[in-house]
């Protein structure tokens, strides 16, 4: 078995209109910029995107939104230093937003990957973000019931990956990537270093290959912060 794809274009070629897509990353760290740009090139529309943020500048997720490909965004923090693209579209009513607290977002994704359809969390209890959600009381304290979150695809950025899809990450670029890899029907990883089978120490694998369907090497990945300093735009 070999999950390596010949190209970024091949890796995302089958993502259809209307797909739900989890995209890893927090701020610019761990964002699979090249996979997102391949998705922009591939052309699907009416996507639902799950990401912690709403992108920055005119590259990556911001570029995807700017191209009008995203109907709905599920995220915790769509506000940022240079949020023009999302902000303008949102205020014009051009994109739907589901705002989820960051820890709840992470746990809902983890629950999706772990086969837990619902769980209770103290977060949002008594706030407007809990509206319409079931409440449960346990040991005298109130909690809000939250549902799992799954997606059709996940776009993941990792550091090293072997042909079976075993992955390691780099510092805080880990963030949402390992849990999104668990929660999508098809998980696609770009890796900065293609490792040979047997090269990754089984003790340090963070994402076991069972969670990954495709991987493609992007040896010298772009970083959102650098692109934005250069005022880059994609496409």
């Amino acid at each position, binding site marked *: 078995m070999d999950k390596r794809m010949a190209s970024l274009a091949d890796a995302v070629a089958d993502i259809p209109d209307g797909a739900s897509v989890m995209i890893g990353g927090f701020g610019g760290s761990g964002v699979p910029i090249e996979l997102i740009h391949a998705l922009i090139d591939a052309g699907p529309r009416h996507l639902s995107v799950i990401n912690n943020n709403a992108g920055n500048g005119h590259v990556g997720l911001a570029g995807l939104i700017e191209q009008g490909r995203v109907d709905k965004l599920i995220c915790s923090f769509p506000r940022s230093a240079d949020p023009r693209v999302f902000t303008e579209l949102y205020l014009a009513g051009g994109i739907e937003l589901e705002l989820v607290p960051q820890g709840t977002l992470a746990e809902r994704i983890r629950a999706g990957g772990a086969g837990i359809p619902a769980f209770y969390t103290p977060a949002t209890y008594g706030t407007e973000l809990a509206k319409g959600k079931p409440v449960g009381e346990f040991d005298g304290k109130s909690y809000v019931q939250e549902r799992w979150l799954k997606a059709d695809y996940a776009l993941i950025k990792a550091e090293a990956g072997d042909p079976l899809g075993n992955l390691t990450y780099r510092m805080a670029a880990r963030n949402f990537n390992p849990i999104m890899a668990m929660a999508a029907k098809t998980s696609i990883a770009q890796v900065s270093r293609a490792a040979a089978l047997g090269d990754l120490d089984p003790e340090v694998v963070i994402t076991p*290959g*069972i969670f990954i369907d495709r991987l493609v090497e992007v040896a010298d990945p772009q970083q959102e912060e650098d692109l934005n300093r250069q005022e880059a735009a994609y496409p």
Partner: protein
Amino acid sequence: MSHDLTDIKLSNAQIAWRAAQDIEDGAYVNLGIGFPEMVAKFQPDGREAIFHTENGVLGFGEAPAAGEEDWDLINAGKKAITLMPGASFFHHADSFAMVRGGHLDVAILGAYQVAQNGDLANWSTGKGGVPAVGGAMDLVHGAKRVAIITDHVTKKGEPKLLETCTLPLTGVGCVTRVYTSLCVVDIEGGRFVLREKLQALSLEALQAVTGATLHLDGAVAPLTAPSV
């Protein structure tokens, strides 16, 4: 059970061999402890499954030579194992996230009883003693295919394939295919559908040792297995 069937029936190894033929190359597979572990030995040439064990190893291989055991490297049956290239370790919650989250392609388990609606009883004889369940109740949920390998009848000759299980259930409606010593049946729409049977065995003789109606859906192929 009649003397005839004892003569013609498949051995446990042959049942395991037959089940192994349905595992795709690259499939992620969990084998229940005991008899199902034998399935790993019979992977067809050119196919390599990746084996998962509940206690936190993906990609393990055969048992080590005697005396070479490392007791920190064991499977769910507490037997010493080895690693294949591309293996990984993880903790128990992540391990059962793989199970419950639908990431395994196949789980192969033993059974006391299987009902025609896919109910499985394989954890308790209901007779007292110390109850123990292990990972079975998790494994029957989540794997894309839950297959059973079993002798067709109990040691006393009683049917194991039933209209309704009489022993405590492991899971409800979870089994999709059963490989027995006499036949292969799929569970579809709340019925046993016969796919393969030993050629030496008439449908009537097979039905006579089965506790629920065997339905037909197209041809019944011969169940064969080499001497293994």
